[in-house]
């Protein structure tokens, strides 16, 4: 119990540190936000109008009190307004969340499915041709960044074979290429770990017992060894899911997928700082939640951790 409490306290401390970091992004940006907003609204900023807007935004107050006000807003779910169109940031991001979840969800299904199937096959027949090919392919996929994989997939599958759309969210099959691109990035990490874990578990006495009592190799690996390797795999899956949520930025941009990542990249290119702040903080929050959830799943799946 004390361990859990310490974990929560540590997480809160990290989130607090992140909030300070995120808030300081505004003061790193060159130029004055009030001037920026006026210029974007198509108004030539005068000393007077800038001073009025600075007062409205609270920019004339000291940094620390501005941070407190911002943090209180964030805690209530208010991330301020976008520089570009003065729309509330929270609503804008929330409207993009379903698309990103659909993409990252499909991608993680692909990643986990592929990793389990390939690693079980490798454990059953390590010397078979397909296991060797998979080993080489894993190294290649781990080395090549998602946007390169995506470009190659688009030019072969979408442009060359005209089998799938090149991007957007127009038809139900539009999710396939971006999800495969994103999923492959996660597969490599997960697969390496699962393969090593299965190999380590295979040396344990209970696997020998299972073989000795006459179970088939397939049943031994799928029912016994895979279950023993699950805790490590769940932790890794948590890290991979967090990576996928963050990696969605690139894939969404490449495939014009209308998710949070695409919104963030547009905002970053336009220096729309409130959206950038919200993006960084929410990504961190989602990551921390996913990692904590993975830890909880491990303690459910593996009784050794609870002791």
């Amino acid at each position, binding site marked *: 119990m004390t361990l859990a409490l310490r974990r929560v306290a540590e997480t809160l401390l990290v989130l607090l*540190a992140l909030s300070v970091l995120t808030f300081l992004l505004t003061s*790193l940006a060159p130029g004055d936000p009030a001037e920026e907003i006026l210029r974007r609204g198509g108004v030539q900023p005068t000393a007077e109008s800038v001073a009025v807007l600075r007062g409205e935004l609270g920019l004339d107050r000291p940094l620390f009190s501005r941070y407190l006000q911002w943090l209180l807003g964030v805690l209530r779910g208010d991330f301020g307004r976008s520089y570009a169109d003065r729309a509330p940031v929270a609503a804008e991001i929330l409207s993009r969340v379903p698309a990103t979840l659909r993409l990252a969800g499909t991608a993680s299904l692909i990643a986990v499915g592929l990793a389990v199937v390939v690693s079980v096959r490798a454990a059953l027949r390590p010397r078979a041709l397909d296991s060797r090919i998979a080993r080489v392919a894993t190294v290649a996929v781990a080395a*090549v960044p998602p946007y*390169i994989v995506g470009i*190659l997939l688009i030019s072969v599958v979408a*442009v060359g074979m005209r089998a799938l759309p090149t991007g957007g969210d127009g038809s139900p099959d539009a999710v396939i290429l971006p999800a495969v691109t994103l999923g492959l990035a996660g597969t490599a990490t997960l697969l390496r770990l699962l393969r090593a874990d299965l190999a380590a578990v295979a040396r344990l006495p209970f696997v020998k017992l299972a073989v000795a009592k006459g179970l088939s190799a397939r049943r031994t690996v799928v029912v016994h060894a895979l279950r023993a390797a699950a805790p490590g795999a769940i932790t890794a899956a948590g890290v991979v899911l967090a990576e996928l949520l963050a990696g969605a930025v690139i894939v969404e941009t490449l495939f014009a997928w209308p998710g949070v990542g695409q919104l963030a*990249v547009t905002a970053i*290119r336009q220096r729309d700082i409130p959206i950038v702040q919200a993006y*960084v903080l929410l990504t961190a929050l989602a990551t921390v939640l996913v990692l904590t959830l993975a830890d909880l799943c491990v303690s459910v799946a593996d009784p050794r951790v609870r002791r």
Partner: protein
Amino acid sequence: MPAGGVAGAVLFGAIVLFCFVAPVLSPYAPHRPDLARTLLPVSGKHWLGTDQLGRDLLTRTAEAGRASLLLAFAVTAVTTSVGTVAGAVAGLLGGWPDRLLRLAATVALALPGLTLALALAGVLPPGPGTVLVALVPLGWVSCALVVRATVLRTAASDHVLAGRAMGASPLHLLRRTIAPHAIGPALTVATGDLAKTLVAATSLSFLGVGPPPPHVDWGGMVNEATALLVVTPRLAVVPAVALALASLGVTLMTDALRRPSAGASCP
């Protein structure tokens, strides 16, 4: 060294050679547009054709590679130096430097991938220096953790105790008995970081927050070419494959170094 490591070193060496030599030998300027020769196909004069502004694709890919590699080397040099010093200090002193390092590691875990780098690169004025500033804040953490672990392990070993018993000063112990053990793991992490940095820096350019033109790297080339992907995929595929091969070469080297038999054990 295993065959994969040798293959990776040869592959990466060949690409480095190509990127630094080809722009010198090529008769074409990598940045000057030639609107009379746009989108030429592959020919004896232009081995990989020309792009939408009439620039020779082969020359431009090499020039972009030079910029990508130089930036990746620079970032990795900084992250490895900072990480080694921070890891050694945290491992040797313990106490608050150690707690600070662990906090940094937790923050790095909470901000996966490019999240912080993207935000920093987007907020600061664009340029190669900004990419450096964007990638260093969390880039040094992995190296620091590995060096810290090695220092802790080595400091507890008998030969360090023997040195201490003979009255060696802490600085002498660090230089003569601990550092030799930490260099191997640090270099292994540095090689891994080189691949990660190469990918991260070009990803920033691909997303349009890298250094502005005339600076060009592989990510920027792919970004420019995505609009023409349907008409001439060659423009995107050539720099994409170059980056993929470079990253693959470094990754193969890292994998070979990570094997326990290579002498440099790495967690």
